[in-house]
């Protein structure tokens, strides 16, 4: 009994229970939604049916309104393991395309964000003129014009990875700028004064003090930035259709009613997002550990 109680206190147990509950709801909902569609088709063709048959068939339709987890798992397995990576039918092929533009856009956005933040912190005029526009730039639903930027840049022969990466860049520079401005200004006042007594110039002040005080903030923003970059890359792939990527996979799935394919792409993008954030988290731990900031 005591053991059971300590088990229920555990976070993993709580997560497992919630996930189990979600799975049960998922299967029930699939039974209801798919069953209704089955009944409709059967009645249209005026075939006799029993509830038992419906229950038996609800989880095996080719294009169900709501695919169940095991169907998605089979599709994921088939499109990852049973296809060569270079094939357009391989989900991994599309994932790598998306990953490439995400990473390029993320790198460009982070560098741009850091540069803007450095400018804002060191220059009064930039602070007054640019900061309000940086914030306003995020109330513009730029994601909505992502496909256009791809088309427009395509018309002047800039195609491939770069237009998509630019969308990712636009989305990911903002959190980095905001976090870095905060971080660069968060340097300990005592340390700043010490540097001033050493007669340090602003460059030394930056490389020896501010840059380090900003690092925890930088990593917190990088985590937000990389998931924003992924969203940008996926949405930017919507109009390019033929060129591949998880977004293209979503769109073609929605054109042809391949619900299982949509869900597989969705799960893949979720895993990709989770993987990218974990990687940033690991880099954070590694770098902060070297500085002795994390035990």
């Amino acid at each position, binding site marked *: 009994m005591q053991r059971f109680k300590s088990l229920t206190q555990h976070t993993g147990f709580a997560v497992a229970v919630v996930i189990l509950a979600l799975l049960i709801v998922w299967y029930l909902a699939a039974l209801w939604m798919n069953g209704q569609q089955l009944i409709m088709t059967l009645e249209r063709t005026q075939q006799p049916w029993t509830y038992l048959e419906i229950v038996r068939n609800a989880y095996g339709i080719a294009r169900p309104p709501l695919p169940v987890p095991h169907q998605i798992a089979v599709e994921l397995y088939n499109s990852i393991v049973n296809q060569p990576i270079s094939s357009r039918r391989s989900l991994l092929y599309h994932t790598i395309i998306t990953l490439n533009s995400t990473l390029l856009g993320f790198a460009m956005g982070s560098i741009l964000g850091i540069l803007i933040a450095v400018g804002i912190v060191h220059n009064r005029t930039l602070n007054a003129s640019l900061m309000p526009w940086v914030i306003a730039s995020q*109330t513009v639903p730029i994601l909505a014009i992502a496909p256009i930027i791809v088309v427009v840049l395509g*018309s002047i022969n800039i195609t491939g990875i770069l237009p998509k990466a630019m969308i990712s860049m636009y989305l990911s520079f903002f959190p980095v700028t905001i976090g870095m401005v905060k971080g660069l200004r968060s340097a300990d006042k005592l340390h700043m004064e010490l540097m001033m007594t050493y007669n340090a110039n602003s460059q030394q002040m930056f490389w020896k003090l501010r840059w380090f005080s900003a690092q925890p903030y930088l990593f917190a923003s990088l985590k937000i930035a990389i998931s924003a970059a992924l969203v940008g890359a996926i949405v930017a792939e919507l109009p390019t259709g033929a060129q591949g990527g998880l977004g293209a996979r979503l769109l073609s799935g929605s054109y042809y009613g391949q619900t299982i394919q949509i869900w597989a792409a969705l799960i893949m993008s979720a895993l990709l997002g989770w993987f990218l954030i974990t990687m940033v988290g690991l880099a954070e731990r590694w770098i902060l550990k070297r500085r002795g900031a994390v035990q």
Partner: protein
Amino acid sequence: MNARILTLAALLCLLLQTMLVFQLPIGFYQQPFWLLLLALAVMACVYLMQRLANITSPRSAGAKLSQLLVPALFGFMILMLWESIVRGFNVPLVLMPAPSRIMTTLLNNLPTLWADFQQTYLKAVIAGYLMGCGLGFMTAKWVVRSPFLQKGLLPLGNFMASIPIIGIAPIMVMWFGFDWQSKAAVVVIMTFFPMLINTLAGLKSVDPLHADLMHTYAAGKSQIFFKSQLPQAMPFIFNALKLNSTLALIGAIVAEFFGTPIVGMGFRISAEVGRMNMDMVWATIFVAALAGSLSYGALALLERWLTFWHPSIRDKRS
């Protein structure tokens, strides 16, 4: 005295550049002489911004005005550059329409744009936003009582925050049809998790001393909630509300790329791109940007009004 003359010269330079851009025949940068004037005008803008930004004495009327004027001047500089370059180099419409062209298109197509705005914003975004934020709030209020559910739901909520939820759009279009209901459903799902996580963090941030105080007052459950928990959670809730106002607009517009009736901002954007009517596309984007900024601003004002007691807002006022 010198500074005054320079300021006057800068203002004159700006005026000259603005007038010339609209007077000269299109393609005027084939004579490189005019580029010189553009460079001068940009320098004039930078100079003016510098002068304004260096008004240091706080609380003076001038400082407040400069806070508004400097970003406005920066915006003006960008618009001037944009207009000059597009007109001066005769940039094709497909690539980039000039701001003046966008405004004319906007004014000429007001009824169409209004219908799109109605379909996307007034129906899908507002319905989805209210439902998503409401559901997130209620769930948080319910979950905060049970540590077990918190442990189970928080990692899941954080996981959901890291994934591109926008991908759910094609599925919602399949389930709820082409009309605004499917877009509202996407908005509900996109706004739910930020609201849940933030409200939960807010409700948990209650100072234990305050909780004890409420206990000594023998406050009832609803009294504790409305007088102690809710006010302290307000800054967190408004963070989520502001974040969601942009997310909701993006969600609704992107969801329209997956199928719509022949009205709506997302439909307009994708249809006009197909016909290469870039001025109409930009006009729609302008409407979307305006709607996004205005709703964000309205929420920020509401936050100021409701959480006037919060240190971050009191600091700004003094």
